[in-house]
């Protein structure tokens, strides 16, 4: 016996959730390559432009058989890809505008045909195009016994959209696995791909074909908006978390899964449109990752920048004191801070230098300690070596190198062991 609560879930929610998951996965996986190739908007164009194909197939055959609808949509998706290329190349139109012209005209054609078609049929609905009809995927004869899942009749009870989506998802996974190497090279560098004997143009068309298939298969269940969201958002989010393509693809699959389930759950809970909620969830996940990603997040970047800033301030203090020590000059704490630009950061760096015992106070005068002296020497060494390098190798004139060296000294050690004086004749401290 299946409990009532689970039975309600099976009747109302199981098929929609599965449809959403498959749609999210198939689009989300392919999206990785679109985002990589800076062609995210091709997904946008295709998902708008399948409309006239769907309506046209229906108008011509007067049937809503899935095969025919699918063929119609796939044909118009491919026409979109070809038309965009033709207008870009023959018409020399800017890519964005070419895409905009093609998909808006095709979408308009679809709306136009839809208005005519719906005079005869109530099935085709313009709103459905945008947010699908997930909520109609009931399991009307949902089982009351667990062993029903093992019976043969279950195959016919599952709606055909779900089978289509499952097949598409598997096909996408196989495509990406088999052609991973080719897709990766063709996406990163079409020139290298050609040299290695990979037909980059063919891979482009194959990818677009799969995007079209995934878009068409998902279209009916989740609507065009979710197709666009799923083609772009999971991949874009994953891109902010990793630098490796394989990891990115796996992460994007997880995010797609989270988006589909989380979005559906939220939508049921709030009683709002599921496809819309999933797109919103995808956006919310992206925002969280964009802010909090450990490697590429806004917070992480701000933190790194602050760290670097503090390091620069400290090194500037030690460098200045080293220069003064070379000529037996002295300065006070406040005077040095004022010279280096009276900022909060410098003041803090000064406090740290004193606390870390790099600098000590002798009376009112600042003096480098043994370890402070070593640090200061290392920085001045890098600075003067950079100056030498810029003059000797990069053709700078000696009076123009200080500012550039001032920046480089904090980042890279040029490591030129045979130099002993800088272009101004000052000694380069030994290592």
């Amino acid at each position: 016996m299946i409990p009532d609560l689970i039975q309600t879930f099976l009747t109302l929610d199981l098929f929609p959730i599965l449809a959403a998951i498959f749609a999210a996965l198939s689009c989300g996986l392919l999206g990785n390559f679109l985002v990589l190739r800076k062609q995210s908007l091709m997904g946008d164009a295709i998902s708008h432009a399948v409309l006239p194909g769907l309506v046209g197939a229906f108008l011509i055959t007067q049937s809503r058989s899935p095969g025919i609808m699918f063929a119609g949509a796939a044909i118009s998706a491919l026409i979109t890809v070809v038309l965009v290329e033709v207008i870009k190349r023959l018409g020399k139109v800017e890519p964005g505008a070419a895409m905009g012209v093609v998909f808006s005209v095709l979408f308009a054609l679809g709306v136009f045909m839809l208005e005519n078609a719906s005079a005869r049929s109530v099935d085709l609905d313009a709103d459905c195009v945008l947010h699908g009809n997930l909520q109609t995927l009931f399991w009307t004869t949902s089982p009351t016994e667990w062993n029903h899942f093992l019976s043969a009749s279950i195959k016919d009870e599952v709606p055909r959209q779900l089978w289509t989506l499952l097949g598409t998802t598997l096909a996408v996974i196989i495509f990406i696995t088999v052609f991973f190497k080719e897709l990766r090279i063709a996406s990163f560098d079409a020139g290298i791909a050609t040299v290695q004997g990979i037909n980059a143009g063919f891979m482009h068309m194959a990818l677009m074909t799969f995007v079209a298939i995934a878009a068409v298969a998902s279209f009916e269940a989740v609507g065009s908006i979710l197709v666009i969201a799923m083609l772009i958002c999971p991949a874009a989010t994953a891109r902010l978390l990793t630098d490796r393509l394989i990891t990115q693809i796996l992460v994007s699959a997880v995010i797609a899964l989270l988006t589909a389930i989380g979005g559906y759950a939220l939508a049921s809970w709030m009683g709002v449109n599921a496809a819309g909620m999933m797109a919103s969830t995808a956006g919310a996940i992206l925002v969280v990752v964009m802010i909090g990603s450990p490697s590429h997040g806004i917070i992480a970047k701000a933190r790194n920048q602050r760290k670097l800033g503090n390091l620069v301030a400290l090194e500037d203090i030690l460098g200045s004191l080293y220069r003064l020590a070379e000529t037996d000059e002295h300065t006070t704490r406040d005077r040095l801070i004022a010279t280096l630009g009276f900022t909060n950061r410098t003041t803090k760096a000064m406090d740290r230098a004193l606390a870390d015992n790099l600098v000590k106070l002798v009376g009112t005068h600042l003096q480098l300690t043994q370890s402070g002296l070593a640090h200061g020497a290392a920085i001045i060494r890098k600075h003067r070596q950079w100056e030498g390098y810029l003059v000797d190798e990069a053709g700078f004139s000696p009076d123009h190198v200080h500012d550039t060296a001032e920046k480089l000294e904090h980042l890279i050690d040029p490591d030129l062991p045979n130099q002993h004086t800088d272009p101004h004749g000052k000694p380069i401290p030994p290592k």
Partner: protein
Amino acid sequence: MNDLPINFEEILETLALQGGFNTNAVILGTTLLGIAAGVIGSFALLRKRSLTADALSHATLPGIAGAFLIATSMGYSGRSMPLLMLGAAITGILGVACIHLILHHSRLKEDAAIGIVLSVFFGIGIVLLSLVQTSSSGSGAGLNHYIYGQTAAMTRSDAAIMGTIGIVASIIALVMLKEFMVVCFNETFARSTGLPVWLIDSIMLGLVVLITVSGLQAVGLILIVAMIIIPPAAARFWTDRLWKLVLISALIGGLSGYAGASISALFPRKPAGAVIVLVAGSIFAISMLFAPTRGVLADTIRRLRLKLLIARDHVLESLYEIESDIEGARHPNASIMLIKLIAMRGWITTSNNTLALTEAGRIQGQRIHRNHKLWEQYLVSYADIAPTHVDWSVDQVEHVLTDELIAELEEALRVRGITIENGDPA
């Protein structure tokens, strides 16, 4: 067919703006909107912002639904057009701001940023819309019209607002034509002359927002972007000059708006937005194919003519070389059609099944041969190309040398004391 209007007179009446006050107002308003969209779209095209406009228009949906929800919850009518337009403008601008945020604070590129904003904002809009439908029984049903647009539901004052905004936006754009032009063509230069580029960009964006929100009711938020993208893209085929581009684009936009609104007023079940876009799309297709100089047809003809010219030159050159017993002469390789064409010009004779140059043909052949030698010499002595490698590029260039260039080449070679064998002018 119940789709057809009652009679021919009615068609004429509508097209001549005699079809009832409300219809006229809507047609006039849409035409003005089309003109304004054409003008402002020109700058969006040149600034490569076509798809940013797409994201903007999709991002208006949460604003429309949100404004409705807020207004009804405060006890006002949510159907007031200015209120919905305000909401639409706010989230539209927010959407563009998000694109900038994503671009500046992450490694994602513009295409991804646009796609993210477009789909996520629209998704939020759909969620809010479904809230409207469940919370306010019936009163929010009309909000759907903002997605696909519906001219039939427009009142005279709606049309008046739309037309006024169109006129105002066009005037602002024309007043700022010079500033817009500088920013579009050379941003760096604009910055260096002290122009506030961000301000000018913001004004451009503001105008796109104005057009988008004022066109929502008539055209709908998905297709309004087509009115901004297509007319300038079509106009681009006809001209290289900015003021002409703006003018032609405005014309195409106005025509599309006029035709779309009229057809939609005449026939039932013909949505104005879709018809407007289809008219504009047809004009684009015609422009792309048939525009003189920049059109595909003109381009193809030009290329074919050049190909024919080159083939003809090669025949004359080869014959000249054979008849003058020049070493390395190549046999002409030409179709019978081509030979007949050259014979018609009177440059060769084909008597006794052999080809021979006429006197005029000999002069032509010599000229081409000489150009060939000139360019060859130039490449060898000036461009450091090995003598065995010059032939291919010479074959391409010898046909397009102008008289001035030939004079320059002769002078350059004379200075170096290089003479050309078999090539001295007759």
